[in-house]
């Protein structure tokens, strides 16, 4: 579904990603682990089109997307929850979610039916989600997110900035799902959250994947991320140094020493 070929991306004067190769197949959870500053976030920002690679290709469903503007990439079905959640603090919870569905208001997206969130919704309710008026589609999508995170429904009129960290993370994920993506990029969703909320977030990620959504998960919490993932990549100073099945990487002594603190 997504393939990075020899990606080099500079951030200011520093080349943060230096020749990354990576592949995500449809329906997978792939974890990208590595220490601070290894180039994980830069990789995600390159996929989303916020940063332009100096060299290399980003191929999404057979199409080269490096150099496309971010909103085009979102409209193709790639959605990102960035590090630090980046909730709009002065927009209400509901408005934050509506912004996630911004492209839908235009009736621009023709792709993405039957997969990802929509697929899950269809399966969950056992009914067809025919797309009619964009307003109805928006209401359906909101309902779906409120089912996933009921606390957001209670808080929908509150300003985003007033939510707790865990609620903000749920809002950030919910907002990214509003566009009905096929591939979800998650950057450090567990960062700074209480363990009980981390468990809930990871459970949600597993459920979303079970519903057909492909996920690229960037984490410093390597143990949890590798347990969840089908496959994993280890990135060190801008290069992928290891890749493999999640469980294999978990049992690897070198990885244990470096990232799992054992």
């Amino acid at each position, binding site marked *: 579904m997504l393939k990075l070929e020899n990606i080099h991306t500079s951030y200011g004067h520093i080349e943060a990603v230096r020749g990354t190769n990576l592949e995500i197949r449809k329906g997978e959870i792939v974890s990208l682990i590595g220490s601070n500053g290894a180039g994980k976030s830069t990789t995600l920002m390159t996929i*989303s*089109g*916020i940063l332009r690679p100096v060299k290399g290709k980003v191929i999404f469903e057979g199409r080269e997307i490096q150099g496309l*503007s*971010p*909103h085009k990439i*979102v*409209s193709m079905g790639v*959605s*990102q929850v*960035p590090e*630090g959640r*980046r909730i*709009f*603090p*002065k*927009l209400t919870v509901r*408005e934050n979610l*509506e*912004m*996630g569905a*911004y*492209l839908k*208001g235009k009736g621009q997206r023709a792709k993405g039916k039957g997969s990802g969130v929509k697929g899950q919704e269809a399966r969950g309710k056992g009914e067809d989600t025919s797309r009619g008026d964009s307003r109805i589609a928006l209401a359906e999508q909101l309902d779906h997110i409120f089912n996933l995170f009921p606390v957001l429904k209670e808080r929908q009129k509150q300003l985003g900035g007033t939510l707790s960290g865990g609620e903000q993370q749920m809002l950030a994920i919910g*907002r*990214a799902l509003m*566009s009905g993506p096929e591939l979800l990029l998650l950057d450090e969703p567990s960062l700074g959250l209480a363990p009980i909320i981390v468990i809930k977030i990871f459970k949600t990620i597993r459920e979303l994947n079970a519903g057909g959504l492909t996920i690229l998960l960037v984490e410093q919490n390597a143990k949890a991320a590798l347990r969840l993932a089908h496959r994993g990549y280890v990135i060190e100073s801008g290069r992928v140094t290891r890749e493999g099945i999640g469980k294999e990487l978990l049992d690897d002594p070198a990885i244990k020493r470096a990232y799992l603190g054992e």
Partner: protein
Amino acid sequence: MFLQQIINGLTVGGVYALIALGYTMVYGILELINFAHGEIYMIGAYLGIIFLGIFTTAGLTQYSLPLSLFLTVVLSVLFCSAYGFTVEKLAYKPLRNAPRLNPLISAIGVSIFLQNYVMLTQGATDKVFPHVLPVTTIEFSGITMTSLQIIIIVVSLLLMAGLHLFIMKTRTGKAMRAVAQDKVMASLLGIDIDRIISVTFIIGSGLAAVAGLMVAMYYGLVNYSIGYIAGIKAFTAAVLGGIGSVPGAMIGGFVLGLIESLGAGYLSSEYKDAYAFIVLILILMVKPTGLLGKSEGHKP
């Protein structure tokens, strides 16, 4: 006397507020003081004279005054929006990632260019606004109010209410607020930042065009240099309300108008223009964030 000054103050205040909105919206999104904005207002005043002149010569005004005025307003707004749109594309967009001082200097350059462009094409002498609008004067208990003053106050209030609804309720308006808060996140959600910036310039310029038109009717005279002083006053109004805040610009405009006319009435009308600058200096010393502005840390 007091009520009379209040009415005069609300009239100019409405105009300042309309111009100030353009400053504050652009600042909210780009953190740029668009010093060319006053010239857009001046061009709006000229366009009003030109279009109304054409319609009057063609006989349309005599046939139907409301239709002629309506077309004048629509065309002036469209042309001014096109100016604002083009200025952003040519003078600011290429400098989007440059240090903050560069677009500011570019804005000053655009301002000088537009002033001279109008002076060369329209002449350096005052232009007279066609006397087509019948002005009636209403008098009650010692206060005089012209129909034009009422029109200016009502139109500016209506436009502000419309803008407020647009920003709060529509998809594009919400996207404008989202872009003002976090551009990277907005683009990660599929919002086309360039389009939102263009919309901001188009709306701001349209409001300035209406302000220019109304002032041209109110004072009857237009000059290529009126954009400078009006621009600085509207900028003061925007800072007074809290730059970046849309309701702040509205309130700031009216407060500045009132300060000016009360100052002119009770202290000295010679210093009328100076009051705005005294206010600007005082705000910068006492409360630089303005009435409604909050001191925000820098966005990531």
